[in-house]
């Protein structure tokens, strides 16, 4: 349970409910912050630091489902556990289809809330991990020079050095040097790793669209 270090955002317009949830989560050993409405939460500078969100559907400004849609558009969205006073089936279905971890009804046993939160934190942790990996790869890809990019594109397409050289109008030896630089900068050992990484970071599609 190393993930519990991530904070949980509690969004509920009812102050005593909000307070009680925060207290419960803290008692269970989670970090938790309370927000009275969607606006307050969205105003937070780095939403990414939240492990998950415990969200009421009825909020004074944005409805919980709308907030969920807004968060989806971010790079990284913390997973959401809904908890509501009067949920109906269509609402539940919508929330679950949009990727909510759970949909709870007030009043709800602490056990269920905590279990849902833990699951959400795990999912959040995985998501963040993936997000971080991807971000690292992106950063490395960005550090390549334009020429190295072109060479990488050729490699990913499965061209030989000679063909790349002919395409770029440079000599084969230079291509080899660029390729070695790319391998080094991307931190991979084998050609297969390079191709997989480049594909994940979207280099392949980039070349496709170009040619």
């Amino acid at each position, binding site marked *: 349970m190393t993930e519990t270090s991530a904070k949980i955002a509690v969004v509920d317009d009812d102050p*005593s*409910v909000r307070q*009680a949830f925060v*207290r*419960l989560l803290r008692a269970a050993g989670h970090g938790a912050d309370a927000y009275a409405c969607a606006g307050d939460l969205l105003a937070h500078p780095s939403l990414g630091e939240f492990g998950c969100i415990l969200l009421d559907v009825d909020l004074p400004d944005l409805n919980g489902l709308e907030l969920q849609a807004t968060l989806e558009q971010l790079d990284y969205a913390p997973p959401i556990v809904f908890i509501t006073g009067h949920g109906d089936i269509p609402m539940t279905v919508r929330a679950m289809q949009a990727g909510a971890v759970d949909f709870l009804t*007030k*009043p709800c046993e*602490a056990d269920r*809330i905590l279990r849902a939160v833990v699951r959400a934190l795990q999912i959040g942790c995985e998501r963040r991990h993936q997000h971080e990996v991807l971000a690292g790869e992106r950063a490395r890809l960005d550090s390549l020079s334009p020429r190295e990019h072109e060479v990488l594109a050729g490699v990913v397409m499965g061209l030989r050095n000679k063909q790349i050289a002919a395409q770029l109008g440079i000599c084969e030896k230079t291509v080899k040097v660029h390729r070695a630089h790319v391998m080094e900068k991307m931190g991979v050992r084998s050609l297969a790793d390079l191709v997989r990484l480049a594909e994940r970071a979207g280099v392949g599609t980039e070349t496709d669209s170009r040619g």
Partner: protein
Amino acid sequence: MDGILPPALYLLAGACLYAAFHHAAKVRGRPLNWTHLWFFLLCLMVAGHVVAKAGGYQAQSAEEIVFWRRWDTAFAAMVFIFLVWFVREYAGLRSVWGPALLSLLLFAFVPLAMLLPHGVVFTELPAMIDHTLPWGEQVTDIRVRPFTNAHGAGWFAVLMSLAYGLYGGVQQYRRGEYTRARWLLVALAVFLLLLTINFVEDLGLLDFFYVGEFGFLALVFLMNRALELESRMARQHMEAVIHHVPALVYLKDLKGRFLLVNRGFEDLVGVPRPALIGRTDDKLFPPVDAERLRVNDRRVLESGHAVEFDEMVNIGGEALSFVTLKFPILDVDGRPLGVCGISTNVSAERELKDQIGTLKSQVWHADRVARVQTLGSSVAHELRQPLAAILANAEAGLHLLSREGADPTEMRDILQDVVRDNRRAIRIIEGLREMLRQGRSTRVRVLLGDLVSEVLDYLQGEVRRRGVVCERSLDPSCFVVVDKVQIGQVIMNLAMNALDAMEDRPIDQRQLSISVQPDEAGQACLTVRDSGSGLPPDASERIFEGLFSTKARGLGMGLALSRSIIEAHGGRIWATNNPEGGATVQLVLPLADDAVR
């Protein structure tokens, strides 16, 4: 003396007498009008005149001739008097002076003929003058000679009365009563023709026989025929009207036998008219219905005037509702002859009205259910918040306690929050009760009796279906300020309870009476009294508590809701058992302010 003229005249007199009595018989049992009376008297006088005439022809001595001649003249004067008045009535003339003057003039001849020296003329007759009739018969001439001034005046009066008759006929013709006018004019023309011949003979200008009497016969015969035709026409018109009236029309004698039914009746019952005449209700309808109809008939006969009833009859397995007006038919002396009924089939309207009533009561019920549901769900939602908070707080507390070294400050905070949220939940529940008590109701000033009528109208079908006799006495001054829907629900509730309570009573013992009147404390008092099974002992208070019901299918919510509504209106409701069986539910509501003033 064994000729044929006097017997012929007796025959004529007999015919006139017959006409008079025939006419009288026709008129019997119908309202007598003056036309009938005058015509009857006219006929009698003609008969008398003709008898006197015949007597004169058979006279053996001058004294006898004088005797008969006097009666002859007196009767003739009377005939013309009655002719004038008959014409006036028959032709519908309005003036009284003309006929009155003529009558006076003519009447002067009655004593003149009977007493005055008029007879001297006869005594001076040297001998009886015989006259040979065209067919060879010899009769005594009874004409008066010589022609005196009295004669002249008499003829003048006769001609005037005939002229008046012609005038009446013409007037009638101009008014468009062609048939009547034609009969009158034809009769008068024949009469006048014969009289003219008489007159001419009298003057000695023509030597023919004196037969004016046959003119009377023509008059009497034609007029009798006219009157008879008229009464037959009137009957035909009446029958046509009766048969084509869309309602059922029938006439029953005192024993309930049908004397007359119209086509509508025949069609509905499905029995041809001739077969219906003489039958009674119990041959046509189920015994229960027939008995009910007879009861109504008897009530009409006892009351002696027209009464309107709501009647229900099973015909061909179908229960039909009628609005019936019944009235007694009286004979000339004012004794009842029978009952006439005019029934309108209102089954379709009734059914429609019943359906509307049922729908309305269903809507009322649905509305009540919906209100409770809405309230329930909104309350449930409101309660979820504090409950969620309490639960979460309590569990957080438990978590903290399970750890080593729990912070007492935090524990206190938690418990304080639990208490606060608990109070909040209580407030919500209090609010709900308040809402139920006052509701979001709109109160208006309304006549309590009107509300009762409205509800009873909805329930009319139910009341009828269950055979309940419903009495209402609604004071027209009890204004109250209430939520119409809520109080309507209460009234409907009470009425339905009363109807349900009478379900197992025999059909003739189901009585519901609803009254509204101000009580001595200045409140409007509504009383619903039934003849049902009454309340079980010690239940009179418990029935107003929720979830207590004396009915097999009851929820036990009706009276509880009623009580909360009535109390929210500042009133009171209670129930008692009647000493003679059944229960009475009473409620009081404060009167509207301006009604107290």
